[in-house]
């Protein structure tokens, strides 16, 4: 493999990893703060992708506007969903949480089917992002993929800033370490949860919207993302955003280079990685903290 190809594959790996990070960070936030295992998190990713498909004719080339609108809609949806459904899950044991959120997946899949049908749909990238830049005669690397990586990076930095530099972030971190204390100090923990949940949904939906032109929208797209996200969270450590970032990039590299070198065994590679981490550090790479 020559340098140019290696570089391109690295770009592919990073781009995939960053997209995964967006979804996984939402999952690990929700899990770390509220202690709810949510199997339906992949459905939020799917929600974002289908939003991109649905909003496309309305916004044409105003791509960033479309993203902002989509994220806002998803956040609103997440806020309401937490209020109406998830807030009842906190008192339940993990098995019930698993089954209730699994049932939620079925419901979402069917609603998707009713709203959009079951066909595979392509979502075009905006005009100003078509084409690519030449990589020394090897191939063209699409601008859109560069944009996707950049967007994910921006969001990751914003997430870091919010969690570590704002009051909201302070409350989030406090609520993660000691919920009762926070409540005792007069913080409305329920509203905090609702905001965190809405944020998690928005992150996953954003990932879906950004990924839609790359992977098309199709039934069941949430499930495949979900399980990889679980692996990312296990490797990175529950509740740790930095861990999720490191783990996502690791997974991105294993997956991309696995496809090239190990072809048919590439799907297994990610799990082997997880097994190795489990032997070495059962609680994930970054144990706690953000």
């Amino acid at each position, binding site marked *: 493999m020559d340098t140019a190809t290696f570089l391109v594959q690295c770009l592919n790996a990073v781009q995939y990893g960053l997209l995964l990070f967006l979804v996984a960070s939402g999952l690990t936030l929700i899990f770390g703060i509220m202690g709810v295992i949510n199997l339906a998190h992949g459905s939020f990713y799917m929600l974002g992708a289908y939003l991109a498909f649905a909003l496309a004719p309305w916004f044409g080339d105003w791509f960033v506007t479309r993203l902002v609108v989509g994220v806002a809609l998803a956040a609103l949806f997440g806020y309401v969903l937490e209020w109406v459904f998830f807030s009842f899950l906190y008192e339940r*044991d993990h098995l019930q949480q698993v089954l209730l959120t699994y049932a939620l997946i*079925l419901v979402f899949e069917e609603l998707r089917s009713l709203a959009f049908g079951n066909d595979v749909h392509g979502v075009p990238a905006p005009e100003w992002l078509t084409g690519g830049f030449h990589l020394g005669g090897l191939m063209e690397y699409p601008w859109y993929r560069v944009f996707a990586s950049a967007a994910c990076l921006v969001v990751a930095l914003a997430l870091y800033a919010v969690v570590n530099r704002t009051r909201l972030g302070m409350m989030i971190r406090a609520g993660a370490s000691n919920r009762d204390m926070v409540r005792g100090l007069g913080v409305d923990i329920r509203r905090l949860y609702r905001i965190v949940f809405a944020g998690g949904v928005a992150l996953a939906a954003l990932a879906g919207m950004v990924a839609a032109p790359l992977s098309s929208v199709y039934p069941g797209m949430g499930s495949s993302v979900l399980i990889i996200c679980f692996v990312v969270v296990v490797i990175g450590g529950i509740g740790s955003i930095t861990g999720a970032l490191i783990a996502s990039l690791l997974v991105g590299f294993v997956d991309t280079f696995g496809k090239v070198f190990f072809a048919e065994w590439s799907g297994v590679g990610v799990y082997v990685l997880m097994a190795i981490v489990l032997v070495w550090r059962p609680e994930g790479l970054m144990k706690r903290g953000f």
Partner: protein
Amino acid sequence: MASEGAGNEGVAAGSVDVRNEVGALPDISRREAGGWLVPVAAALAIAALPLVLSPYGQDVVVRIAIYAIFALSLELLVGATGLVSLGHAAFLGIGAYVTVLASGDSGASLALLVPLAMGVAAAYAIVVGALSLRTRGVYFIMVTLAFAQMAYFVFHDTKVGGGSDGIFLYAKPVLAIGATTLLDLGQRVPFYYTVLTTLVATYAFIALLLGSRFGHALAGIRVNEQRMRAAGFSTTPYKLAAFTVAGALAGLAGLLLAVKDGAVNPELLSWHESGAVLLMLIFGGIGSLRGAVLGAIAFTLLKELFQSEALLGPLAGHWQLTLGLTIIAFVAALPRGLIGLGERVRGLMSGRAAHPAAGGSP
């Protein structure tokens, strides 16, 4: 109290309150209404069904019975030991694939296939168990799911199996001594009764296991593992043993499923399958062997009902919606499942106030 534990689970993943995995459970080995009579009567009733059912109907009964065996194997993990595994379908699938792969073109003897299917499933269970049991709580759930997914990808992507199309079983297993065929699973009637016998044997085996010292150790682990460890008990070998036995039994169910369908497919290892068997347990009522069987029946029939165009017309196409909503309503309203409902009804009828059977509270 339960919420406290649920919240702390994510914060300090080392904290162990196993009750938060499955909530307060009745003592699984306590006597249920009717003792042994009820399961025996049920077995006899199922044995008599071929007299009234069409071949298609018998197919459905066999399918339910195989899933009941699968559910019973998971009950050993979830109900008895308190370990929630979201990857149990992997062992079902492995048992099924081993059966088909070992049968080749000319078929194989049951005497080879049964130990092979159960053995390979048990081997994978030991490896997965050893790694997964290093984690607790939600980590455990996610890790079991991930390992099932790994097995799924082995069969889906690589040349070990037939890829996403699966492989077909061209010659069904027989049990023969020399030239005499004792049992040909390719025939409908012998197969029906073989499955029924396996179900009864599995039920009896697990019931006896749970009544033994091993079973009592598992109960102790389920109720309060820290206390067991504080008393000097090494809990991991017991958990691993339960995990392995559960995996082997699931492998047996897989063998029967492969013979019934004449085909195996990677979707057998999918998490939808793992989720379905968990649903069967919760439908029937966790902590009860009868519940496992009942749950298998209820879930399968419910799915058939919701997919039946004859009964539901156009709504049948949207069975995921009806099933999903039903599950939510059921789990939310009846967390103790059908068995729990039965107990409440019995309590009401005998004039006592309804109470959750609280054997095993600390």
